[in-house]
């Protein structure tokens, strides 16, 4: 038995996905020209699957800060902060994050994935119970494994199911830790955070909110769902990423909890990996500043999201449950999804193909993510492209048929 034989089923599915045209899992752009445009094979492609919610990747001030830091501090830190020490910019970014969230403590990680591994995996120990939303991101699932805690999933966005489970755990000696997300990365729906927080607090549980897709997007100041829902005081830990709205890479956690800094010498995904290069840190500090004063960007982002969502719904597609910048189109089966995705790319539109195991209900998705940087014309063209390809594949009714009905 070969060492990779256990992946036969995955390999089969992967080969099938590739047999239909391009390999959806290794698209190669010749060049990325802006936050919303790239080129593949000499042809222009509109980017509508890059989580670049505020379009800051090419922001002049962010780029300038990064370049300056790069020149001053070099390309990398070549080690972890525990071993090699921190640069001034690391400390500054943490102070800025703490100030932005109005919290006492902040800690940065090299990716958002590692922030979840580090925070969830370290906070929850053997005697503790982790209760995670069933639709949680892979990094949360992996963090659970790392923690060694008892883990149960509650029904997606169900405060009632969470309450039932917490009741079961009443009297257990360990801590109970609830983990939810701000905006769910695949279906784009938000958590009913007020209800979930109330249930968690009632049971004396801690609550962690992963604002990966909601930082910069929700809340008046862009702090995410906890701000928008008015429950920041009751959320014990917020984790997030610099890789989406902030247009860079990295992860973080903020909290008011006492003795937070012990995590710096207890949290292995913080201690045993190299820290962020200061060019990234510098652009992130600038991006955070722009998020805070970015009310106009959030308004544009929401206008664009609504335009795309409503346009696609009107064309007859099955959409996600809520309008946010994550706009998924549900497709019946993997074969159609793959052909559809290829057709879109052929027509110059890039979105994400999500096959069943990564989606909560097992249905494949063509997942779009909208940016404040998209023009109305780009959104309208995307709707037209979806409609054209969808009609050709009979995924939605053709106009003549629709009229005849």
């Amino acid at each position, binding site marked *: 038995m070969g060492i990779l034989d256990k992946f036969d089923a995955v390999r089969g599915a992967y080969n099938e996905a590739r047999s239909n045209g391009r390999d959806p899992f290794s698209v190669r752009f010749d060049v990325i020209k802006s936050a919303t445009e790239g080129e593949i094979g000499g042809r222009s492609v509109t980017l509508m699957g890059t989580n670049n919610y505020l379009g800051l990747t090419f922001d002049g001030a962010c780029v300038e800060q990064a370049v300056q830091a790069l020149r001053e501090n070099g390309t990398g830190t070549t080690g972890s902060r525990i071993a090699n020490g921190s640069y001034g910019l690391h400390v500054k970014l943490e102070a800025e994050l703490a100030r932005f969230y109005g919290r006492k403590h902040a800690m940065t990680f090299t990716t958002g994935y590692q922030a979840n591994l580090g925070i969830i995996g370290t906070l929850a120990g053997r005697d503790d119970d982790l209760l995670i939303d*069933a639709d949680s991101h892979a990094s949360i699932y992996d963090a*659970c494994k790392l923690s060694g805690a*008892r*883990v*149960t*999933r509650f*029904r997606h966005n169900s405060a009632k199911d969470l309450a039932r*489970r917490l009741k*079961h*755990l009443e009297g257990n000696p360990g801590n109970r830790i609830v983990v939810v997300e701000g905006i769910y990365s695949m279906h784009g729906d938000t958590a009913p955070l007020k209800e979930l927080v109330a249930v968690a607090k009632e049971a004396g549980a801690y609550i962690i909110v992963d604002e990966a897709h909601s930082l910069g997007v929700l809340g008046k100041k862009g702090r995410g769902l906890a701000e928008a829902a008015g429950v920041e005081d009751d959320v014990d830990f917020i984790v997030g990423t610099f890789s989406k709205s902030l247009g860079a890479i990295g992860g973080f956690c903020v909290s008011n909890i006492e003795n937070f800094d012990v995590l710096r010498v207890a949290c292995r995904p913080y201690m045993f990996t190299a820290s962020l290069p200061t060019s990234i840190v510098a652009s992130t500090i600038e991006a955070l500043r722009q998020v805070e004063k970015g009310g106009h960007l959030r308004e544009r982002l929401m206008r664009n999201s609504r335009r795309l969502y409503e346009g696609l719904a009107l064309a007859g597609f099955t959409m996600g449950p809520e309008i946010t910048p994550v706009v998924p189109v549900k497709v019946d089966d993997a074969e159609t999804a793959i052909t559809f995705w290829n057709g879109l790319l052929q027509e110059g539109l890039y979105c994400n193909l999500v096959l*069943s*195991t990564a989606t909560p209900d*097992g249905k494949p998705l063509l997942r779009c993510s909208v940016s404040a940087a998209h023009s109305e014309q780009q959104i309208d063209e995307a709707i037209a492209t979806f409609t054209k390809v969808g009609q050709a594949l009979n995924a939605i009714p053709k106009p003549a048929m629709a009229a005849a009905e």
Partner: protein
Amino acid sequence: MPDADLDFIMGELRKVVKQPEDVRPEASVTRELGLDSLAVMNLIMVLEDEFDILIPMDKLADVDTVQDLATLTGSLKSQNEDECA
């Protein structure tokens, strides 16, 4: 009433597998019946509701066959009853 539990589990499995006739107590849930990790976790939630138990994810490491699953839910149910007693 372990037999009733086993029947319930087999009934739920028959709803989701491609070949319902393959569902037997000794069938391997993932290898023979072909459930992927998502399908397993969804089944677990149904069982948690039906039997009013929590099935921690690490407990699934010991589950291979349908019978293993019934044994696991049975032992969690009796733990529940002990606690209530």
